[in-house]
Every structure is written in C-alpha cells, then in structure tokens.
C-alpha cells in the first residue's frame, strides 16, 4: 500500500428521529417536496460540508438500507388503492434508493461521482469503503459520505414482531454525513486507517481481524460483539451513528482516547472501522 494517499474524516454531522429544519440551507421552494428523510439528509450533508469549508465535493457517496421508506409505502399503497392509476409523480421520484444522493448532487450542483449503496446494515460501511479506496488511490481528493434511513410505523411493527423485547417506539432512525479528504484539514482531522466488511466471518476470523486492527492497544469503541449486534437492531443507521460517536469521543487531551475501532454487526455481516486522531504535529 506504499505510495497511497491517506484518508481523513474532517467533519461530520448526525441527526436522530424527527424532522430537520433545512431552511438554513435551501429555499422553501426547494424544501417543499422533500420528505422527512430527504430533509435530514440535506441538513446533515450541508452541515458536514459547511464545517469542512469545502463548497462542492468531488464525490457524493451514500449508504441507505431502505431508502425513502415513507414515500415508498405511500406510492405502493396508492398503486393498490387506485388500481395502478393516478399515481403521484413526486412519490414515484422519491421512492428510489438513490433519490437522496441525487437530490444532494442537484442542490450542490455537483456533477462528480454519485453512488448509493444499499447493503442492509453495512450500507454506510460500503459507502465509506468506496470513498476510502478512491481517496487513497488518488481518484478523488474529497467525498461527502452519508448514511440515511427512516422507520415507518409498519417497519417498527415488523421489527417489534421479530424482537418483541424492544418496543416499537424504541427503534431509532438516524442520518449522518461526513466529509472525507486526502488532507488533514479542519480542527480535528481523524485518519480513517482501515475499513473492513466481513460477511459471515467465523469467530476465529473475526477475532483475528479485530486483533490485527487493535494490535497497538487501540480501545474498542462500540463494544463487545453482543453490544454491536444490539445496537444494529435498535438503530437503522447504527454503523454511521457509531462512527460519528467514536469521532466525537477522540480527543487530543491527555488521558482521552486517540484511536478507536468501531465494530458493528448487522445480520451476517460485520463492519470494522479503524479511526486515529491526527496529533497537532500532524503525525
């Protein structure tokens, strides 16, 4: 891997349940067609961009497990009720998974690489891996990487049926967006050292991977495996939310963690994301 660029997380934003006030960043006219998930995605994306000082990213890479679920449900309900007639075009446009990344691209007038990953609970990690590889290879200098998911009443009921120990209202939805760059810009750049996705790893394979990434005494962030699994059940964007929380916990102050290994488990897949705070001397 010699000669490859480094990749840094230079800013980030995260929002939980509820609607975001996007009027800070877009006009009422631009916002009026946006559903809840789009508003959260736009808010977190623009917030991460603002913090980074970069106006337009080289790439927009998004992870979403279920896309615009609320609009998808409305659109499918209309199909059933109206006999496949009189379908609302706005719902059609906003029921595809890549609506979120494309809407962000249109608002930013960003004509660069625009990609959406829908890989269940490792959607965000897949998007992060793409950005990490491209920045390290020098294909792009920076990227806006986000993860956005929403839960509807129907989805909450389905999840509750599968996990009766969790009340429907306790399932969380979240949006998180990060600016990644090849330079350690900003107040608190964090090097993204490694991104690994393991599918159906044996206990030994997983243990080896964790040991290889935490060889220098890196504290585990997020967890035991059981905690990681519980978290992924509770939150629709657990991997992105965990990375955001880990980034916030890293601190240059004495005694505070300088690196973290974020482990999230989703179904049969496990994400391993190694983060290291860049010291003030840049090393």
């Amino acid at each position, binding site marked *: 891997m010699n000669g490859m660029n480094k990749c840094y997380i230079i800013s980030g934003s995260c929002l939980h349940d509820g609607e975001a006030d996007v009027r800070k960043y877009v006009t*009422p*006219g631009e*916002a*009026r*067609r946006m559903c809840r998930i789009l508003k959260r995605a736009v808010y977190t994306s623009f917030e991460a961009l603002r913090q980074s000082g970069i106006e337009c990213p080289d790439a927009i890479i998004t992870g979403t497990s279920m896309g615009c679920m609320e609009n998808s449900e409305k659109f499918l309900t209309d199909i059933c009720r*109206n006999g496949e007639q*009189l*379908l*609302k*075009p*706005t719902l059609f*446009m906003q029921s595809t998974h890549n609506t979120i990344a494309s809407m962000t691209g249109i608002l930013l007038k960003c004509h660069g690489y625009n990609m959406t990953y829908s890989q269940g609970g490792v959607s965000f990690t897949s998007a992060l891996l793409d950005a990490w590889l491209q920045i390290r290879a020098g294909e792009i200098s920076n990227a806006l990487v986000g993860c956005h998911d929403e839960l509807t009443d129907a989805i909450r009921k389905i999840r509750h049926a599968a996990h009766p120990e969790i009340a429907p209202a306790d399932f969380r939805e979240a949006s998180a967006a990060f600016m990644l760059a090849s330079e350690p810009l900003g107040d608190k750049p964090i090097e993204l050292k490694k991104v690994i996705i393991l599918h159906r790893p044996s206990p030994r394979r997983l243990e080896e991977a964790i040991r290889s990434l935490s060889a220098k005494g890196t504290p585990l962030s997020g967890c035991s495996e059981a905690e990681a699994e519980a978290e992924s059940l509770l939150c629709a964007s657990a991997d992105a939310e965990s990375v955001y929380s880990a980034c916030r916990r890293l601190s240059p102050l004495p005694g505070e963690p300088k690196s973290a290994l974020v482990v999230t488990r989703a179904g049969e897949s496990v994400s391993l994301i190694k983060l290291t705070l860049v010291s003030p001397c840049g090393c």
Partner: protein
Amino acid sequence: MEELINQLKEQIIEALNLEDMTPADIDADAPLFGEGLGLDSIDALELIVLMEREYGIKLGNPAEGKKIFSSVASIADYVSKNRKK
C-alpha cells in the same frame, strides 16, 4: 365559481406541498408557472393527476393543458365545464 376556486386552491396547496400558504395567498388570476406561484414541470404532472382524481378530467393534449393551467381561475373555468364528478 368562487367556491370551486377556493376548493381548487386548497387542493393545489395540499397536492403540491405549498407549505405556509393559505388559499388567500394565491391570486386566482396570477400565473401558476414561471412567475406567480413559480410551479415547475413536476407540479404540472401533479395537477394533471389532481384533475383526474378529483374531477374525472383526463387531459390528453399538452397544448390544451398549458392554457388550462395558466391560473387557478382558468382551471376552475375548465373544471366547471368538463367535470365528470
């Protein structure tokens, strides 16, 4: 006609998500596209669906649609003469 105009204004506000607008904010004679409300092509599609769903009117001729959708008053005029429900 006044009642139909008000009903159309409410339906347009709901169908096009014109947040923070009330029927009183919409001038029945003002242009809907370009100036005035500043609607776009996706809004035009929403209005076509609205006309069929609420009034049973199918618009097949795009040139005709441009004239009908020029203002709320022109829509009301067309609806009053062609409504099926």
